[in-house]
């Protein structure tokens, strides 16, 4: 899936996260993660975000995550929403989202 425009999903409220996506400037996938719980759960958050992007087939783009202590299920949902919005995708392949 290709990110063709800037898009946002989520909020900066507690237990949520804000995800921003943008098209790749150089054809690479860049992942920036900030979290209130970075020291305890940074690796886990990165793993969930990376896995979610991989299942969606995102190989290029800028993905910025500002996490406020969200559960994994919220992280997956917000990343998917931002990517689908950024890709202008309306038809959903649900097997890629579980």
């Amino acid at each position, binding site marked *: 899936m290709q990110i063709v425009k800037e898009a946002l999903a989520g909020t900066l409220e507690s*237990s949520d996260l804000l995800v921003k996506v943008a098209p790749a400037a150089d054809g690479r996938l860049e992942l920036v993660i900030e979290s209130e719980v970075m020291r305890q759960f940074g690796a886990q958050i990165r793993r969930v975000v990376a896995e979610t992007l991989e299942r969606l087939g995102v190989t290029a783009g800028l993905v910025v995550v500002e996490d406020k202590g969200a559960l994994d*299920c919220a992280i997956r*949902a917000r990343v998917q929403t931002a990517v*689908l*919005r950024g890709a202008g995708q309306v038809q959903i392949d649900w097997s890629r*989202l579980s």
Partner: protein
Amino acid sequence: MILRRSMLFLPGANAAMLSTAFVYKPDSIMFDLEDAVSLREKDAARLLVFHALQNPAYADIETVVRINPLATPFGLADLEAVVRAGVDIVRLPKTDSAADVHELEAQVERIERECGREVGSTRLMAAIESASGVVNALAIATASKRLVGIALAGFDYVMDMQTERGDGTELFYARCAVLHAARVAGIDAFDVVYSDVNDEAGFLREVELIRKLGFNGKSLINPRQIELLHNAYAPTEEDVEHAQRVIAAADKAEREGLGVVSLNGKMIDAPIVNHARRVLQRAQASGVRK
């Protein structure tokens, strides 16, 4: 018998609430994709609910999702998401006729087949929100074997009736019609939300009324209402003792092969035994009334 006294509404777009609501332990949790979600957040809410439903924290609680009406651009997409995610019950808003239930059932069955879920495993609930829906309540309640209940939704109903929410007079016929339809169909009946969360006395008055009418439970908009509701639906100590005596007499009669059960000289028939079982089930779930 599944206890469905409390059905807590949660806005589907709110990540914090979706992450914690299971701790309040209502009988059912209802994720809302309809009125509580703005048009521009429909996609985000759908995905949040899709993943929340698969969170192990919700494995032990009955989950309900209120989808958007199928006639809107969002309804079918909601259904695709929640059936695939394994929701227990889909709640259809603005149900005006049996045809609405038939259409929902056909779509649910198609999705179950496509994603490999057992056909029939997704249950349905219809929300009645108009004069047409109330008049057609019996046809709606008996429209599908998947239906586990019908609910009255007060706000849209009173608008349709050109009145407003008040002391309950405005809902009198609708409550009775929905309740009778549910009982004929052998399914549950749920009452409207009580929107003033700070009016505890008013809430309890309404709960007492719907409990006496025979409703199984009520939709709630705030976790603070759960304990109040469960306590109001809990039997008294006297009710529990009587129910225990009824069950003991019924068991004894069965052991002795007697066709007729009696307690203190009064005949006990099957409805009384069933009622006693429901009393003990409620007592087990929430103790005796405080």
